[in-house]
């Protein structure tokens, strides 16, 4: 899939899952990667009690910040403005794209380099800018590989995790001029480095995401290992940061525990190579750094999540990806099968709330409710509960006191609703239930042999000749009569 097409999420979901399950190479790539990442994380948290204390702390920090979200956003805006950073607000993806394009136009800019930003994937920025004549180049190695292959990321932390080095070697050989086939990873990274250095050198604008936005100081925090995030935010004359409104934290004191949880949960690192804290554009006496810094605060459905007490927990997410690394379904079907920007358990919760249940509600099916995701989550988001809630909402059409998730009731099927109504009726009326059982057992020969997908790999269930009720009644009767018999002898 070369671009994220919301319209295909529900429609082609089953087909994508089927295709992914058949792809042995893809499955091997994910299995290997997930085992690796789970092992790395486990090694970072040898002490279970320590981990739990840290998770509790992370959850509490995020909850406190969310409870003050409107005030913190205003404070963040004020501090940024004082520091010389320009703040923009976008309610929708379209609005965010338009703001970014306008900044590009103001500078007659045609070349953008991008640091990793899932929010930019969420709003479809690359294709929007390409349609408006702007070259928009991903610079995170994984993102660069994915863009070169005309694909989308399959994991929020490791975007090219679905590819092995042979596939990447072929890709570089085919797509980059003068590159010979080589499976040497150092060589491949060196090629990417050389190509992208030239792009950093030439770029007019750098765009990044934001991991934490500090309200107290008006600071943008970026977490990375490669240095492309620093390049993007240092070398071009203009820096634009795209930041979900939920990313705001109250003060710098909140950063160390969240950073610790993020890097250890994501890649099993005690800290990443770079933690980059940006508080202003270049000052007059400074020799480098962008002369203009913009922050685009993106809502795109987040304030709607905020309205519902249970679903608000979605906004605690610090985007570490541990939930997908620990998800048995994600491990088997991979990120692209979901068909949305955000895959895996957090994707199953975020995506239907951003794009609506009518568009992306089907992906909540890809869950066994085993709960491994919630156990791995560094800020204790009860992901399985939220997935179940969204499954419920996709079938529910009763009005709620706060704005319901978009597309509420959209996956409701009439036949399914009628079936459940009848079932409830039977279970409420003992007489009716007995009658239904009687009919089912007596007419068992008429039970259908084929019942849709169920019988593709299984045999159809057939009612027994007598119900358990009847058998039990018979048995107690015969017991009673044999006891009677015994007494007479």
């Amino acid at each position, binding site marked *: 899939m070369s671009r994220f097409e919301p319209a295909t999420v529900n429609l082609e979901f089953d087909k994508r899952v089927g295709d992914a399950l058949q792809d042995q190479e893809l499955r091997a790539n994910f299995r290997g990667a997930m085992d690796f990442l789970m092992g790395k994380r486990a090694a970072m948290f040898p002490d279970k009690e320590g981990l739990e204390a840290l998770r509790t702390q992370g959850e509490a920090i995020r909850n406190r910040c969310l409870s003050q979200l409107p005030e913190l956003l205003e404070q963040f805006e004020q501090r940024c403005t004082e520091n010389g950073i320009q703040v923009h607000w976008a309610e929708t993806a379209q609005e965010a794209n338009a703001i970014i394009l306008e900044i590009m136009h103001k500078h007659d800019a045609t070349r953008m380099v991008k640091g990793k930003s899932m929010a930019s994937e969420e709003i479809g920025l690359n294709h929007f800018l390409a349609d408006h004549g702007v070259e928009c180049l991903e610079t995170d*190695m994984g993102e660069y590989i994915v863009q070169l292959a005309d694909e989308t990321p399959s994991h929020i932390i490791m975007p090219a995790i679905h590819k092995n080095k042979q596939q990447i070697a072929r890709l570089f050989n085919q797509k980059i001029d003068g590159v010979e086939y080589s499976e040497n990873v150092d060589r491949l990274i060196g090629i990417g480095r050389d190509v992208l250095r030239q792009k950093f050198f030439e770029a007019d604008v750098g765009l990044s995401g934001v991991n934490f936005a500090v309200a107290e100081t008006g*600071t943008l925090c970026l977490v990375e290992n490669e240095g492309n995030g*620093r390049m993007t935010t240092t070398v071009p004359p203009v820096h634009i940061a795209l930041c979900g409104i939920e990313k705001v934290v109250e003060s710098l004191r909140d950063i160390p525990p969240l950073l610790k949880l993020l890097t250890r949960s994501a890649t099993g690192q005690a800290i990443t190579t*770079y933690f980059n804290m940006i508080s202003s554009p270049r000052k007059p006496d400074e020799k480098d750094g962008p002369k203009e810094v913009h922050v685009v605060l993106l809502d795109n459905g987040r304030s709607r999540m*905020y309205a519902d007490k249970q679903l608000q927990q979605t906004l605690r997410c610090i985007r570490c990806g541990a939930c997908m690394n620990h998800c048995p379904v994600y491990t088997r079907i991979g990120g692209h099968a979901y068909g949305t920007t955000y895959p895996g358990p957090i994707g199953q919760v975020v995506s239907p709330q951003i794009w609506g249940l009518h568009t992306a509600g089907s992906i909540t099916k890809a869950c066994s409710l085993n709960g491994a995701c919630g156990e791995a989550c560094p800020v204790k988001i009860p992901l399985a509960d939220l997935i179940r809630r969204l499954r419920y909402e996709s079938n529910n059409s009763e009005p709620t006191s706060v704005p319901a998730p978009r597309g509420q009731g959209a996956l409701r099927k009439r036949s399914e609703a009628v079936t459940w109504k009848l079932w409830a009726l039977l279970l409420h009326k003992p007489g009716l239930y007995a009658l239904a059982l009687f009919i089912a057992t007596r007419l068992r020969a008429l039970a259908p042999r084929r019942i849709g997908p169920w019988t593709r790999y299984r045999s159809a269930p057939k009612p027994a000749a007598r119900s358990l009720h009847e058998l039990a009644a018979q048995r107690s009767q015969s017991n009673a009569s044999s006891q009677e018999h015994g007494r007479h002898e």
Partner: protein
Amino acid sequence: MSSREAILNRLRTYRQPQPSQPVQAPASAPAMLSVAEKVRVFTENLHAAHAEVITATEENWTRRLLSVLRETGVHSVTYAPNTPHGESLKSAAHAYPELQLHAYENNIESCKDALFNHIQCGFGAAMKGVAETGTLMVKTGPDEPRALSLVPPTHSLIIHAKDLYADLPEALHRTQITAALPTNLLLISGPSKTADIQQTLAYGAHGPKRLIVVLIVPEESDHV
């Protein structure tokens, strides 16, 4: 209504009362480490992150650093002029005629080509270090340009053992830095790296391939 107002209004209208959840103390209290212990842990962690550490004294660090650079074929270094460490390096460099020193004294616009294509090493200073993670805190500004620690393929920087802290909260809070943050405050914990191709670690993704830390200790004999 502007988007700003619309977003803030929705958030205010639908704010959920939060159960008052006291923030628990960190999982472990910061370890009270001696300087020697901090030096040991800091160095171990930097080594684990593929960084090189030169433990030296105020008297001999320039000689030690310059010979390492010479031995590894680094002949062009840019540094921040008008800084104590920059000036020390400059005066010591006379003994190394093959070494070209470039003062980073003009705006990046006028030295971008040299920085990207010719200079092999950037030399600067860290204001603090964090032992627990082997992290260097770099306060960029007029005396510490941002590209110095980013663009050349080797990055070297100096740090004093007295500026080491046990962990990040201590380093952040035991100082006045949080009152007014610089344009760019950096935590650097090794050379640039990536594992984006089949989880295989490779160094020098976009930033420096080498990180050489010059750690100044009071008495060399105590720590080597």
